[in-house]
């Protein structure tokens, strides 16, 4: 399908390139001012603000129904590095770049409180990862997307291994083996086959594979893609995510709740909608299989989350399960399903980052990692735990928190797709969500601390608490101001469905 | 039979070549291998030189400074090529024997089996 069909006005602009480059430039500056921590952090903050500003500056154009394109270089005929900003990419870019600002503040507080080593390397890799996330969001074709996808893996690898303890290193090993391994052995061949059959790798609104290959071949490509995008955390390639929890909490928060995993599901959405196309997938019926597959991950991961005593691990399994919501939603291939899927990228990001921030704050203040140790912590850290409650409720999808919106659309999607078994899955998993979050909240506020230690209010440093409150507020705003986000998402859905929505 | 005789030198070349090749591969003494290599190479030289000969031809040296009628000459080009090949051959042999000397100095033997044995002990 041609771009003309999308009825989008195309604007040539290098702004997406700047949005990617700004943090790469910051990498150089951060690296060269390693001896002056304040200057170094200034660069991070400046880059984060500038990046967000650049992304926002493109928002009006996108909301006006236009797209921004920029061609950087042709590596080989048919393999280009090119950018194309559309509403779907915009959702991810806005979320990631905004949360980078917040996380940067938090990270400064966290790293300094913990007196971490190699902070310069930490902030450098962080900036690279963000660049790559922007690049992925704005990719105009599978190849560019793949390149940035790999770039994220490699740059975050160093962050996961940050502590350099044997545990961190073995976690990092598994991280790399899963992410790099699957992408090379499945994603890359899938891309190769796509190129071979479709003759192009450019995303197009109704996909590029329709009519180009037999159903068998398309199914094979489909399976390769799904297996290759391990960042989406689908079972059986999910275990890198819990393993990555050895990283410092800001990493877990931004990367393993937002940038890395969201790029994973974003890639799946991109590929499903713009490489295969809704019609083709519906025709072959591949969406349903994926939906059931994702359902399994949702339930299994929720059950595993129940068993975790380590707070970050519990959050990690929760993430695995929530990511599959996004995959499930898009796999329904209905307007509401896709809406839910895209919205959940942002909504889950805010919720989950809040939860991770809280986990980090607790660790900084009390050095406690386990759920079973959190009795009465709500009295010691009331603001923090209030924010935790907000995040948890959003996960469970209780109104008036953001999570309700996306789950609402998901439920509508299942009706549209006439898949009632999926509805059962959603209900069951909501109950499971409640089962692993509510006890924490209950214990934090209503149980007595062990061994009768009594604390006054002892919050984490302000540099950490403020970001927590901001993101928690964000969760609320996303509920009340959901139409704003919805406007953007609708454009994406429209382009995916060929304007029929 | 005529066919066989007309290609007599080819058969000789083949026999020498294969003999040399077998020697190179099968003999374990480093010097013996080089001798085999020489036999192998000279077989190819013989092949070339054999093709330079023409029935009734004479050595390619012009009469009367190239003026007037000339006899049938043998083909000089293969001979030239083989001059080069011989020189290359002796150079190779010299370098090979240098290696053998050094190997003997380092290992105290020029039997391939023993050298392999020694290498194994080292590793």
């Amino acid at each position, binding site marked *: 399908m041609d771009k003309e069909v999308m009825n989008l006005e195309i604007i040539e602009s290098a702004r997406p390139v700047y949005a990617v480059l700004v943090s790469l430039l910051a990498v150089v500056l951060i690296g060269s001012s390693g001896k002056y921590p304040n200057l170094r952090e200034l660069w991070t903050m400046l880059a984060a603000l500038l990046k967000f500003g650049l992304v926002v500056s493109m928002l009006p154009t996108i909301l006006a129904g236009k797209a921004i394109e920029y061609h950087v*270089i*042709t*590596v*080989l005929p048919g*393999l280009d*590095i090119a950018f194309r900003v559309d509403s779907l990419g915009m959702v991810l870019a806005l979320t990631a770049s905004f949360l980078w600002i917040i996380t940067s503040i938090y990270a400064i507080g966290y790293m300094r409180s913990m007196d971490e*080593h*190699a902070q310069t390397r930490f902030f450098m890799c962080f900036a690279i990862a963000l660049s790559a996330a922007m690049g992925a969001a704005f990719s105009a074709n599978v*190849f560019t997307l*793949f*390149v940035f996808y*790999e770039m994220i893996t490699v740059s975050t690898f160093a962050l996961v*291994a940050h*502590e*350099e*303890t*044997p545990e961190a*290193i073995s976690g*990092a*090993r598994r991280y790399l083996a899963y992410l*790099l*391994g699957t992408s*090379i*052995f499945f994603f*890359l*061949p899938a891309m*190769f086959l796509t*190129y*071979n059959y479709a003759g192009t790798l450019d995303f197009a609104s109704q996909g590029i594979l329709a009519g180009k290959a037999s159903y068998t071949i398309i199914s094979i490509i489909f399976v390769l893609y799904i297996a290759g995008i391990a960042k989406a955390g689908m079972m059986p390639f999910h275990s890198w995510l819990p393993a990555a929890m050895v990283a410092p909490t800001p990493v877990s928060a931004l990367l393993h709740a937002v940038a890395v995993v969201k790029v994973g599901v974003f890639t799946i959405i991109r590929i499903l909608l713009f490489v295969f196309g809704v019609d083709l997938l519906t025709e072959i019926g591949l969406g349903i299989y994926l939906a059931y597959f994702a359902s399994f991950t949702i339930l299994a991961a929720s059950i595993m989350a129940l068993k975790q005593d380590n707070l970050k691990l519990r959050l990690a399994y929760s993430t695995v399960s929530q990511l599959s919501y996004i995959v499930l939603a898009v796999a329904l291939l209905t307007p509401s399903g896709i809406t839910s899927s895209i919205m959940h990228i942002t909504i889950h990001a805010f919720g989950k980052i809040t939860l991770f921030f809280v986990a980090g704050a607790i660790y900084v203040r009390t050095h406690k990692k386990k759920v079973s140790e959190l009795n009465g912590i709500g009295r010691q850290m009331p603001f923090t735990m209030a924010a935790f409650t907000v995040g948890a409720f959003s996960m469970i999808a209780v109104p008036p928190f953001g999570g309700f919106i996306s789950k609402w659309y998901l439920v509508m999607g299942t009706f549209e797709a006439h898949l009632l078994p999926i509805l059962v899955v959603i209900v069951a998993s909501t109950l499971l969500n409640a089962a692993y979050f509510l006890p924490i909240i209950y214990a934090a506020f209503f149980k007595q601390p062990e061994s009768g230690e009594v604390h006054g209010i002892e919050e984490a440093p302000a540099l950490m608490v403020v970001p927590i409150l901001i993101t928690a507020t964000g969760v609320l705003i996303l509920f009340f101001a959901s139409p704003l986000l919805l406007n953007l998402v609708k454009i994406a859905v429209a382009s995916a469905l060929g304007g029929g929505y | 039979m005529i066919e066989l005789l007309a290609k007599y030198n080819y058969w000789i070349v083949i026999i020498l*070549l294969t003999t040399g*090749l077998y020697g*190179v591969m099968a003999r374990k003494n*480093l010097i013996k*291998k*080089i001798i085999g*290599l020489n036999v*192998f*190479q000279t077989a*190819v030289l013989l*092949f*070339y030189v054999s*093709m330079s000969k023409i029935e009734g031809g004479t050595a390619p040296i012009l009469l009367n400074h190239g003026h007037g009628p000339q006899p049938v000459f043998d083909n000089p080009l*293969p001979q030239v*090529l083989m001059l*080069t*090949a011989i020189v*290359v051959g002796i*150079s*190779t042999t010299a*370098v*090979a024997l240098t*290696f*053998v000397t*050094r*190997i003997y100095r*380092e*290992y105290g033997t020029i039997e391939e089996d023993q*050298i392999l044995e020694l*290498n194994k002990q*080292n590793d």
Partner: protein
Amino acid sequence: MIKHLPALLIVIPLLVAIITPIIGRLHWVLSWYAVTITTFISFVISLLLLQTVSVQGRISYWMSGWEPPFGIEYSVDYLNAYVLIIVSFMAFAGAIYSRKNIDVEIEDETRKPLFYTIYLLFVTGLLGMVVTGDIFNIYVLLEIASLAGYALIALGKKRQALVAAYNYLVMGTVGATFFLLGVGYLYLMTGTLNIADLAVRLPEFYETKAIFTAFAFIVVGLSIKLAIFPLHFWLPNSYGYAPSVVSAVMAATGAKVAAYVLIRVMYSVFTPAFFTHTPFNIQYIFLLLAVAAILVGSIMALAQTDIKKMLAYSSVGQIGYIVLGIALMNVTGMMGSLIHLLNHALMKGALFFAVGAVVYRTGLCSIENLRGLGKKMPWTMAAFTIAALSMTGIPLTVGFISKWYLAVASIESGMWWLVPIILLSSILTAVYFWRILDNVWLKPAPGEESHEHGHDSHQKPVKSNDAPLSMVIPTFTVAVLCLVFGLFAYAPVSIAEKAALILLK
């Protein structure tokens, strides 16, 4: 003088090589200067040749002024110019690199000028093989490069180097003699030695058994030089025990030139039409050998504990890729092969350079000993990492480009079964490099295990003690080129495409 470039390309290094031992008597460093400058000049000439070819097409230079086929012709088209650039550039990088490297690998001062002489003779031979248009001249130049190569390998510090050099000499001479024998058959049937003339006169004899025999011997002879599986036995020990700079330059240039000659013979002396006349399907034999080489090379590389030997076995596998592209007999495949000539030269060059730097600092090259080197030699190890990633075929590195083309070509030829094999070998490559990278970056240096892990050990960071700049710069440059040509692949690809089109016209 532009007219004489093809001659100057060979004559300058030849004469400088001959003078080198004389000027080296004053001080050995002078010979280093001579060789470095000369290889650079050769590199410049190669670039000029490419430029000239792009302006006026194929260049033909008549040695001694005799018109071909009477005299020896030197001819340059896109293919020659492309290979020349690879060879001369890697020789130049190797020359810079060698200055410090041979301090530890060839300690003896009096040997150094001769090392440079022979190094330059080696390069001369290779350049000559690429640029000559006369098949017998190829044989003579092949022997120069080979003899020089044997001597260079024998310089290795361990005594196994001598045995390796000896075995290589024996196999190499058998190979060269096979080549000579094949040329004899060709000459006997056609009466000419000029490649262009042969190409004209051969087709009428395609049906004959003699020509098939000629082809068989030439190809087998070259396969020995190229170390195509199963004729690769000489290679692992030779690369493994030679001085590092020699391994690097040989892996980066020697095998490439052998591959070039194979391509020339198969597609310029013979033509694709010949392969329909052969008694059995040569293409399948090549493909099977290529696949076997790719797999066996990768698997054997996995089994090695010595990093140089591991790289050597990896070369066996990579040569398989080159052969694979040649054997596919379509333009895309040929492009894949030609691009891989450049790419493998860069990758393997960088890897061997990096290993040489490690040997320079630590004196050891077992994989075990690489532990914790990431901190001690960050630049060297960064270069190694880039090249290693490239070997596995990550996008934006050169390794990706060649594998991509080979995969596309396999599908084009209807040989889809080759794609999983390429993929499988990528997996194996990733595994055997992972072992090293894991040691380099993630494991503590030997002797530091006793320290407490985590924060304490970071208070006193390991002092970085990288190799000298004259080694790090070439290493890193070559590694960065792996990235540059991975991103700006268009330049080599367009040359390779033109060359491939000429070959398969």
